[in-house]
């Protein structure tokens, strides 16, 4: 399951889609809209937009790389677009594998690469009504 959706993401459905036969471990990352912006300002929400064709192709490319690195894994990626409020889920990445080391590594690799490569953009909208700001992941430390 690789998707960009307008509606709230069903985390369980993403986990289920990532589950391979023989899985002994499933690791799921959920990205949530935070109340504090990159520069410390109070955030009312985030507005996401995407170039779906390129973003989805990138999801699949990242999944291929994760499989090459970590063997027989299952992977699902769903990102939301549109206006999200604080506390809402923006992205879910789920990985399953026979053992947990591969599931953790594949999940972590996928979200890192997604953030640095996928054609998705995010604008912080502020509580104080000041103009929103487009945020880049370029300077973000990899985990």
């Amino acid at each position, binding site marked *: 399951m690789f998707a960009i959706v307008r509606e709230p993401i069903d985390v369980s459905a993403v986990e289920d889609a990532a589950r391979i036969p023989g899985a002994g471990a499933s690791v799921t990352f959920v990205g949530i809209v935070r109340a504090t912006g990159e520069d410390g300002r109070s955030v009312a929400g985030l507005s996401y937009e*995407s170039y779906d064709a390129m973003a989805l192709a990138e999801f699949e490319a990242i999944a291929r790389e994760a499989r090459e690195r970590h063997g027989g894994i299952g992977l699902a990626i769903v990102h939301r677009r549109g206006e999200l409020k604080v506390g809402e889920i923006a992205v879910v990445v789920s990985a399953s594998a026979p053992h947990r080391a591969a599931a953790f590594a594949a999940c972590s690799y996928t979200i890192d690469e*997604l*953030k640095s490569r996928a054609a998705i*953009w*995010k604008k912080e909208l502020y509580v104080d009504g000041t103009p929103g700001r*487009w945020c880049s*992941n370029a300077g973000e430390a990899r985990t």
Partner: protein
Amino acid sequence: MTVRVLAFARVREVLGVSESVLNVPSGARLCDLWATLCEQNPELGPLTSSTRTARNGHLADSTEILEQDDEIALLPPVGGG
């Protein structure tokens, strides 16, 4: 000759539209298209170094020559997740 231009995030806001069909002279390169857009929208200038361009869904070099019906996407630094 016409190409379709998709713009995202800050670039979309400066252009005022997310999608447009533009006339370009035969033989024009990607960088010529960008230069034309910058002339019409001076606020684009500062975004030049940070904006990448995709042609028909793949990142493209600015020297590539445009073809009829190309889909050109203007991509600011991404911020997903």
